[in-house]
């Protein structure tokens, strides 16, 4: 065995981000403050959403559903952007934490997309009179959910997680190219089969007393997403470490050649 040359310089930010051990070290100090911030943001956001904002003159109290629905829909797309960035990190720099970030993000993306669809359905019932409408936006969100679930299925199909990361990264890029095309085709299809009347929320302006709680809740949900993503990444690093320790132990116990 050759001597490993000791370097005394401080690791750079890229190494700190890329090295799983260093990542566990610095991210430990972020989890609690992030959880605190997220709790405070939720407290403010929920207060504004329930008591600090008026009911809509048409939809009544059901408008408050928007304060969960819109952040979830925003995160469902933000999460794909995050996975896209991580996929580039995996393919270009073979960044080990990018692999972990991709894997940690996929179930969260599926969760928030499902939440957006679920709250949309609950909201649609009193306002549109139906749980599901083949509306362009709802349909593309459903397809996005299917893509997330496909990515999770692909992760699970591989035994070798290093190879899985690179293959999933390729597929994530393919999906990123396709999502705008799917969105466009669904919109085209929707205008072709325009239903009689669908209530539309996106008026020219949103009143500020509704916009403020909406932004507060979006911030709260985004902080929650970052927190969950970080915790999932930490769990994934630990899981991999446990697995490699178990493998080493099994090898030692069976007396197999290293």
């Amino acid at each position, binding site marked *: 065995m050759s001597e490993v040359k000791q370097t005394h310089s401080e690791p750079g930010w890229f190494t700190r981000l890329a090295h799983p051990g260093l990542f566990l070290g610095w991210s430990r100090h972020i989890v609690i403050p992030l959880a605190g911030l997220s709790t405070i943001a939720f407290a403010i956001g929920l207060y504004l959403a329930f008591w600090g904002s008026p009911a809509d003159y048409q939809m009544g109290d059901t408008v408050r559903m928007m304060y969960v629905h819109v952040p979830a829909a925003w995160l469902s797309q933000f999460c794909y952007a995050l996975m896209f960035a991580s996929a580039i990190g995996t393919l270009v720099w073979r960044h080990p934490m990018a692999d972990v970030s991709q894997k940690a993000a996929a179930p969260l993306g599926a969760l928030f997309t499902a939440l957006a669809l679920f709250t949309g359905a609950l909201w649609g019932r009193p306002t549109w009179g139906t749980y599901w409408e083949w509306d362009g936006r709802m349909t593309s969100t459903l397809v996005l959910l299917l893509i997330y679930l496909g990515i999770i299925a692909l992760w699970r199909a591989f035994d070798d997680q290093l190879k899985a990361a690179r293959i999933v990264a390729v597929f994530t890029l393919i999906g990123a190219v396709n999502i705008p095309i*799917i969105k466009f085709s669904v919109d085209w299809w929707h205008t072709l089969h325009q239903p009689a009347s669908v209530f539309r929320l996106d008026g020219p302006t949103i009143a500020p007393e509704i916009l403020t709680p909406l932004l507060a809740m979006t911030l709260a949900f985004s902080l929650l997403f970052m927190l969950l993503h970080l915790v999932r990444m930490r769990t994934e690093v630990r899981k991999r470490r446990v697995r490699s320790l178990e493998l080493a132990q099994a090898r030692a116990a069976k007396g197999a050649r290293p």
Partner: protein
Amino acid sequence: MKGLKAILLRDLRLGLRQGGDLLTLLLLFISVGILVPFAIGPDTPLLARLAPAIVWVAALLAQLLTHDRLFRADFEDGSLIAFHHAAIPLEAIVLAKLAIHWILTGLPLMAATPFLAVMLGMDMTMLGRALFALLLGTPALSAFVALSASVTVGLKRGGLVAPVLILPLTLPVLIFGAGMMGDDTFGAASQAGLFLAALSLASVALTPFAAALALRVSGE
């Protein structure tokens, strides 16, 4: 160029000699088309109205389930590793395999469409439109199948993951394909035809690069 021609001919011969594969593909296509009338009853006007949808869903399923054919055998017998180091770029080899896949699946599906047309009560003009739509759309389907095949080639149990993975991405093909056979009063069908052709051209042009990247990762 010579090497590419050799690969093209090799794949074509391999595909044609395994006649069972072709039969399975056609059986699947026709069976899916027949399942629908059994499910909704022998209502001819309704079936004629649903015919474009039935033809496209059947074609989609039949082509998606042939993904194992593209790279699996080459991966298992090691030819794929030879392709990595061949003088021809891997992208060109993927394009050749894509072309052969289309000849061996897209064309037979079009040849079998008249049978479905008779059973589903389509008239001659509708059959012509169906064939034209399939001609424009099946290359894109082949390209998507090549993508899913390249992503799952390293998996021992890739059988079901590949179709599940690629199904959402093939949605535009289905939408424009069925749209092309629909009502043309506002020029919607011809518009769909243009979009379908654009989709086929773009996906055939881009797929070799993505699929070759996935194959390189799988072969590492």
